[in-house]
């Protein structure tokens, strides 16, 4: 498709992403640090690699979610010269579907029903699921395992975002803060967003496909554009 340079130059390559399916990833941060921006960049990277992405937004509107993609895609187009940008924008639209749910309405059975609607009629066969706004505070281990099983049965990759509250000091032995400190073993990949003194935001990669990582991999979010950069 001619988008290989975009894929190869993406700093996210450090993360070994797209190696395998059936994996679950987690992005954690305090409110407002750029979780959604990072998830959207992960999704766009998957789309550029020819994957289809379902973006589940819990408690958000379709319009707002779509504008995240539009904005970040514009930034990518500004940085890299792409022949026929319209085709790229079109391609992204065809490889992405947004599903928004009310906070309480998102359950495994609902999700499964919706995914089946799409797959059985051959409307959309997703490879990657992005779940933004999932409420980890009120979810137990069982519910999450349930979703993990669903992902495995459908041969999909999934990425979640979780909010870590400033006052909550609970933390797992591997360094995963609350509210995910007791379920961190379910995730194959964990990224923590940490604000630095110079207003940049570091990507602290706690786990990279099973392997524990020390000291991250030297990625950060540009505080003005929220784009992932190498240090």
């Amino acid at each position, binding site marked *: 498709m001619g988008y290989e340079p975009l894929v190869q130059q993406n700093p996210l390559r450090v993360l070994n992403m797209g190696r395998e399916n059936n994996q679950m990833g987690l992005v954690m941060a305090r409110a407002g640090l750029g979780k959604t921006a990072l998830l959207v960049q992960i999704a766009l990277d998957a789309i550029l690699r020819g994957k289809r992405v379902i*973006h589940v937004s819990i408690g958000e*509107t*379709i319009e707002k*979610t*779509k504008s995240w993609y539009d904005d970040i895609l514009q930034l990518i187009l500004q940085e890299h010269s792409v022949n026929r940008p319209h085709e790229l924008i*079109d391609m992204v*639209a*065809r490889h992405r*579907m*947004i*599903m*928004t*749910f*009310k906070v309480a*309405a998102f359950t495994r059975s*609902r999700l499964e029903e*919706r995914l089946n*609607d*799409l797959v*059985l*009629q051959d*409307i*959309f066969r997703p490879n990657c699921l992005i779940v933004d706004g999932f409420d980890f505070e009120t979810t137990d281990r069982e519910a999450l395992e349930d979703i993990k099983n669903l992902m495995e049965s459908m041969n999909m990759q999934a990425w979640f975002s979780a909010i870590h509250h400033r006052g909550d000091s609970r933390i797992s032995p591997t360094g995963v803060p609350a509210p995910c400190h007791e379920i961190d073993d379910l995730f194959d990949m964990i990224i923590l967003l940490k604000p630095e003194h110079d207003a940049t935001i570091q990507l602290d990669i706690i786990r990279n496909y099973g392997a524990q990582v020390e000291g991250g991999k030297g990625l950060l979010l540009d505080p003005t554009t929220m784009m992932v950069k190498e240090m």
Partner: protein
Amino acid sequence: MKKDLKKVRNIGISAHIDSGKTTLTERILYYTQRIHAIHEVRGKDGVGATMDSMELEKERGITIQSAATYCSWKDSDINIIDTPGHVDFTIEVERALRVLDGAVLILCSVGGVQSQSITVNRQMTRYKVPRIAFINKCDRTGANPFRVTQQLRDKLDLNAVMIQLPIGLESDLEGMIDLIAMKAVYFDGDQGDNIRIEEIPARLRDEAEAKREELLDAVSMFSDELMEAMLEESEIPEAMIHDAIRRGTLSLELTPVMVGSAYKNKGVQLLLDAVLAYLPCPTDVENTALDLDQGEAEVVVSNNPNDPLVALAFKLEDGRYGQLTYIRTYQGMIQKGDTIINSRTGKKSKVGRLVRMHANEMEEIESAGSGDIVALFGIDCASGDSFCNGVNWSMSSMHVPAPVISLAIKPVDNKAQINMSKALNRFTKEDPTFKTFVDHETSETIISGMGELHLEVYIERMKREYNAEVEVGAPQVAYRETITQRAEFDYTHKKQTGGSGQYGKVGGFMEPLEEGEYEFVDAIVGGVIPREFISSCDKGFQKSMAKGTLTGAPITGVRVTINDGSYHAVDSSDIAFQLAAIGAFKQGYSKAMPVIMEPIMKVAVEGPSEFQGAVMGSLNQRRGVIIGTFEEGNYTVVEAEMPLAEMFGYSTTLRSLTQGKAEFTMEFATYKQVPKGVAEELHKAFEAQKKDA
């Protein structure tokens, strides 16, 4: 006559189709004593609601044109612009919004915020119209105004705060609790004329206290006095709360929510009180005009009746006595006998009759002050024109979308032919999104507009109001053609056999133009094409743009540059260079990879979640790109971008797929390239058609 502008309200009533807008307007006119009996929209008495002035609207039970009507309530004048609810008539809604100062957003207590409410809300935000929400139909089964209020917050992003609480719901709806005065209000009598105020029923006391706290919390942001009073826990005067709500509403940061049932005559008078209390008067709103003498610099209109007149003609209607022009004045006065100047055409007109409109009836007046909405007789203009006297200003131009669908129409006989042209002439003046022209090759009359229903309504009106019976062809999508790459051309037009010859040579290139339709660049040096023939080339290119070679659709998005050529001292002429340019364009166009573009519509389908799969399947089959789904309770909205060409007859498909439980709206989004397979078919059909002709 000088009026206190503080006591004028120009408001609109806007909502999703069938949420009871016309019924509400009817009740307002009744309580303000403009009419003396209530007729239902689909009433059995056969009279129909007063606001639906056109016969057709009565028949369909929908409101198409925004009639302006005037009434007075408690010493204040209210001009109501009734706006259509169907998205095909969006230009009408937008035009009405332009002249409003405030609006009432009506929502159905069962249906809640539906897609059309979202569109209307977006338009209101664009034109910065302060609004109050009225949750109607609280007497219906399944009514839940609390859910609707939450939707106003979630879906429309409004800071919606209930200022009333219903007493009972569905068939038990008795009245409402005023959370500011903390009183229960009931409506007695057959038509709800007698308002009875009582203490709040004991069973609702706690809930009312809690809701009042919520209300005070939300509005205290807008008033320091109120905030202080709350901190001191002293008695809070009602006026202080009203004032805070008004400030919040005017700043567009608060939307007070009221409840009621227009049909059951409950809550309408309180809504009128709220219109006076919270919606802006003309001087509260800043309107801007463009000064045509200063290169369209923005100027703020003064609202001062002593300044030169500035008025906007926002609606035309064809009445028995000629053209009726609805205007809104922004500053100055308009008086019978005045001379006013149309700033678009520069034409002077004399004001003959000035009237105040009430749906179908009218009242003669001598003059109208700044901020008023009145109608003029016998003024020739198009809607959207500005009238001035003393300055040369134009109210900022309104954004008019290009038509996306067209139909061929043919009058059945000679008489119909004459009536048809009269009707078309009128409609094009009334509605900038409605266009008409004659296709010279087929000599058919083509009408084009914003959707199937839009054109249907005009065909019906032709029949009813103008007695013009027409045969209607199949709807056609307005395709366009454009080029995708740069191409050179070098063409010589030569005809030098006998008599005066023709000679012209044009060289250069064409390239895609991202924004805009056509650009002509003259890069000729050394006079290889003489000055006087440059414009001939431009003309020739423009002629070529009218009809593409793939489907015969107009070509857009091309920049043509000429940089070479030659001429003959005797044989070169205007026409020779035009023909050379046409030849050159053809040559370049075929090399520039031309493609067909089609209109893409933004479609939203709403219905019960159980049908979501079927709905998505039907959209997918029609070459649609599904953007996303929105689930709430058992209700789902599917948003998609659909080619208009695939949407004909979709309402029937949708109805049978969902047992009539889903509905859809669509509006024009953009033009996109047609996929290869479809493009080939279109091209083949065009070739076949050419052969036939």
